[in-house]
């Protein structure tokens, strides 16, 4: 057995993956109506390229990306455009979205077909296909993949890391694809290595997925320069910087530095799969695997879902809820976003829909910090979360800045471990916003 690696800090939340880990991926029902927000990624929103009444085929471009850090949006189904207007979004405010009514045919765009000679493609052609397919990081952050694959001149990349950690409790989407489609994932990884001109890659998988380690190792064995690295079970092992630290021992300097500053590009397992499909089949990113799970879901499942399907449709397909729903979360329980309505659509970054019952979701009263230091030991970024929380609570923004508030990645380890139930992440998110707006005002003045 290879020695398991890990990073300093972190917490051990219960993983609760057994609810859905044995459920094979099933295709979700294609809904009658789909809502495609023009912003499903980090970066500039897309411009709608269709208008009410237009007919579209599945895979056809409907939102164009005009800036470098952006990703185009494609129609996930065939049908008629019903509306181009503001619509609810799972992350915050309503955004411009295209609503498509299905024609029931699920007819695909003619351009989408297998390219038998895809392995002969030049790196820049692969990159173009990735960009045009609108692929973003599917782990949750949704950063445009093509941007990650275009390091600025002068940055030498020597290693690609495939992130198969899936450290968020409950989620099993990446785990399932690593079991069911390891060949495609590794083929996608190869394409990424080709674009970056890198001949070494590591596949990081946590030790709670021995079957995934086995299935990926089996495929990687025949590949030169691709190694599977087992990792200790600890949250947030799947955070980019922590994964690099664990596998290579390199520390990514604080923002604005990126992993590529230490010669590494990290890609999620699902992203590699999407890259493979985009390059081989010319298929844009219009579907993804979503884990629908939680104690309040009757029949948790891993579903292959067309983007734009509403949360309520998927919940209905998983045997509905058993009564006492407290919280519906997009993503995992550590970093996911609580939803206030269920007509929001699945977007590119939706790795899971987690439904907690009332008891689990019950709000605990936040009390005074007792300086026990648990959060400090848990913080994978070596910050002082308790003080950051107190400073943000009191509006002491300068002090919060001095303690490097912007280095916080909001992984939630501190909020999880705090015995006084303090909501550090909440306070830090608030603090970052306040500080940014103060900075903006200051800049406007000068």
């Amino acid at each position, binding site marked *: 057995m290879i020695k398991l690696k890990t990073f300093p800090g972190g917490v051990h939340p219960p993983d609760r993956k057994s609810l859905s880990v044995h459920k094979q991926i099933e295709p979700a029902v294609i809904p009658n109506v789909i809502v495609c927000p023009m912003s499903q990624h980090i970066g500039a929103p897309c411009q709608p390229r269709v208008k009410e009444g237009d007919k579209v085929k599945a895979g056809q471009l409907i939102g164009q990306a005009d800036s470098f850090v952006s990703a185009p949006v494609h129609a996930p189904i065939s049908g008629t455009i019903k509306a181009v207007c503001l619509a609810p979004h799972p992350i915050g405010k309503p955004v411009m979205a295209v609503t498509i009514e299905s024609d029931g045919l699920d007819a695909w765009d003619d351009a989408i077909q297998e390219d038998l000679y895809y392995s002969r493609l030049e790196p820049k052609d692969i990159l173009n296909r990735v960009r045009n397919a609108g692929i973003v990081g599917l782990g949750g952050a949704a950063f445009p993949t093509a941007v990650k694959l275009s390091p600025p001149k002068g940055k030498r990349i020597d290693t690609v890391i495939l992130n198969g950690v899936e450290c968020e409790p409950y989620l099993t989407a990446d785990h399932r694809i690593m079991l069911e489609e390891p060949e495609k994932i590794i083929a996608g990884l190869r394409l990424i290595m080709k674009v970056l001109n890198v001949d070494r890659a590591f596949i990081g998988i946590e030790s709670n997925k021995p079957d995934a380690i086995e299935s990926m190792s089996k495929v990687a064995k025949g590949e030169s320069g691709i190694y599977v690295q087992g990792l200790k079970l600890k949250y947030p092992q799947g955070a980019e910087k922590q994964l690099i630290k664990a596998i290579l021992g390199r520390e990514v300097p604080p923002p604005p530095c990126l992993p590529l500053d230490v010669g590494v590009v990290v890609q999620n397992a699902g992203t590699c799969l999407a890259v493979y499909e985009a390059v081989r089949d010319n298929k844009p990113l219009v579907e993804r695997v979503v884990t629908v799970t939680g104690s309040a879901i009757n029949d948790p499942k891993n579903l292959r879902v067309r983007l734009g399907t509403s949360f309520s449709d998927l919940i209905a397909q998983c045997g509905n809820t058993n009564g006492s729903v407290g919280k519906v979360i997009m993503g995992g329980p550590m970093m996911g976003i609580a939803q206030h309505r269920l007509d929001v659509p699945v977007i590119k970054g939706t790795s899971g829909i987690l439904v907690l019952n009332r008891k689990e979701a019950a709000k605990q009263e936040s009390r005074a910090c*007792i300086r026990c230091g648990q959060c400090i030991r848990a913080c994978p970024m070596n910050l002082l979360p308790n003080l950051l929380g107190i400073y943000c609570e009191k509006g002491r923004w300068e002090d919060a800045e001095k303690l490097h508030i912007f280095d916080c990645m909001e992984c939630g380890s501190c909020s999880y471990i705090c015995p006084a139930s303090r909501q550090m992440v909440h306070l830090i998110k608030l603090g970052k916003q306040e500080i940014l707006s103060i900075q903006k005002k200051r800049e406007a003045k000068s």
Partner: protein
Amino acid sequence: MADGIDRLMLSAPSHLHSPVDVPQAMHDVIIALIPALIAATIFFGLNAIFLSAVCVLSACITEVLVKRLLNSPLTLWDSSAIVTGLLLAFTLPPATPWWLAAFASFIAVALAKELFGGIGRNIFNPALFGRVFIFLLPGWKLLLNGYIDPLWWKGQGFFTIINTKFSTAGVSIMDMAGKHLDGIAGATPLVIRRTYGALAIKNIRYVDLFLGNIRGSLGETSAFALLIGAAYLLYKGHINWRIPGSIIGTVAVVSILWRQDPVFHILAGGLILGSFFMATDWVTSPITAKGQIVYGVLIGLFVMLMRRFGIKPEGVALAILHLNPVAFFIDRYTLPNKFGG
């Protein structure tokens, strides 16, 4: 919309919380203090339990009263008053009058904790504050007569409850019925050493120092029992080695430099109790790793200076109390290196 879903709850992540909360942590501390309470009961008789109960009860009643007075929500649930009461009892001479113990406990909770805003906001360790407070009252020297012999109860009966009386003539240790218990108290090893020199403690065996078969405060004498409790807290992750390790290490180094017996200095007096249970008090100690070591070293130095030059050869309580308000500043100058430099 799916059926039966209305009024969804909203909050920022994380949506999952560790089951360990403040009361549970406090319960672990109480569990960790039980071995020392048992040792105290063996050496000082049922009086040890009586005095501890008085302190705990007084701490709890005080907390309820203060909260009522301030019209703020009751916080007895967090069990921190029980911890304060127990720790305070452990620092008192075993023959302290019960009403004085109750008063010390009142001071600890009312002044040192609640006046500052309750748990988490206090600057001083409440138990130590309570103990030092009664030693600052006029006539404090009388308290020093309360160090009774270990296993004194062999002649009087295990169930004897001590009722100490102060008068102008001095101190008389009696039982509840008023019967005088003469000749059971004396000087602690540290006092003997200061007064009569190193030769005078030659006949004190290490094993007695370790097990607690010596004179001293109620819960401080048995290093063995305290270390069992400390091991539990270390195992549970409530404390770490840095503060106790650096205090004990500093005491050892200084005593060697002064050509004194390091084992004696570590085991005699309240060093083990103070290092593992008082100096590690979350609220009043530094939170940074480096800061905890600095804090421990400073406490260790302070203890040794007190033992050699202070008016009283015991300095653990004062050392910790003096460094409590410094803890926050130590934090400021010992910030951890953030990830990525």
